[in-house]
């Protein structure tokens, strides 16, 4: 059976659905019996969701003005 360490190493592949069906079944079986790995998987998903909402770099206003001028010139 898949060890916890191996499951943790493959967790992103599982979450991103980039895993073969066979491997996926192995992971699901392991998760069914292992509370620590179930928690890890949930925590990693939460971490990824948090990262997705962090650090959204906004377009500087000066850049928007400059690009609008360029866009108007091209008309």
């Amino acid at each position, binding site marked *: 059976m898949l060890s916890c360490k191996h499951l943790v190493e493959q967790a992103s592949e599982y979450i991103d659905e980039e895993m073969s069906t066979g491997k996926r079944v192995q992971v699901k079986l392991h998760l069914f019996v292992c509370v620590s790995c179930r928690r890890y998987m949930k*925590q990693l998903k939460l971490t990824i*969701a948090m990262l997705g909402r962090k650090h959204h770099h906004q377009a500087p206003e000066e850049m928007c003005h400059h*690009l609008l001028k360029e866009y108007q010139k091209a008309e």
Partner: protein
Amino acid sequence: MDTTDLPEENELIQRLINHDQQLFVTVVKAWHPSLYSVAAAIVGHSIADEVVQEAWVSVIKALPKFEGRSALKTWVTRIVANEAKNRYRKKSRSVSLESVDENWSTDSRMVSDPRFDSSGHWNQRNPAWDIGSPDELLAAGELQDCVDKHLTRLPDQQKYIMELRDSAGMGMEEICNILEVSSSNARVLLHRARDKIQQVVAKFQRTGEC
């Protein structure tokens, strides 16, 4: 501004070609976070805004000739990546993008991990977190300071891939094309970065320390 607020693809292209100025600014703002991530991943944060701006100037010139072979955003993203790569090469660094890529695979593997015993089982039961949603995590100020500190310490390659995938929401194939890395390397590096941040949050949850 969210990308979902934009009109559907055909209407978007037509209106931009027809010089809808308001829509143009909306698109520039909506796509900036992900375009910035692409530029920053290649040239670093200091000139990433400048690179995106230059790329948009090229987009404006080429837009009437856009043939729609890919989605407009994919096309713009490629122009940003090309502009960034040109800048990177112009800086005449002693290493090329390709030689940097080779180093990506030499990063040390997770040979021994203190979380697991020699048979690969958890040394201690992994405790549940008190926090159950991303918004709660983001609202925890001290925890976010801690996460930010560790994000800056991640190896650049790991940080870039994670930015493109988890912040910019790009697909792995596109990321590999843009950064010129193999899919297997990219997956390993992405997981290391995510796993590291999971461990940072876990430690903070357990001990209240960064």
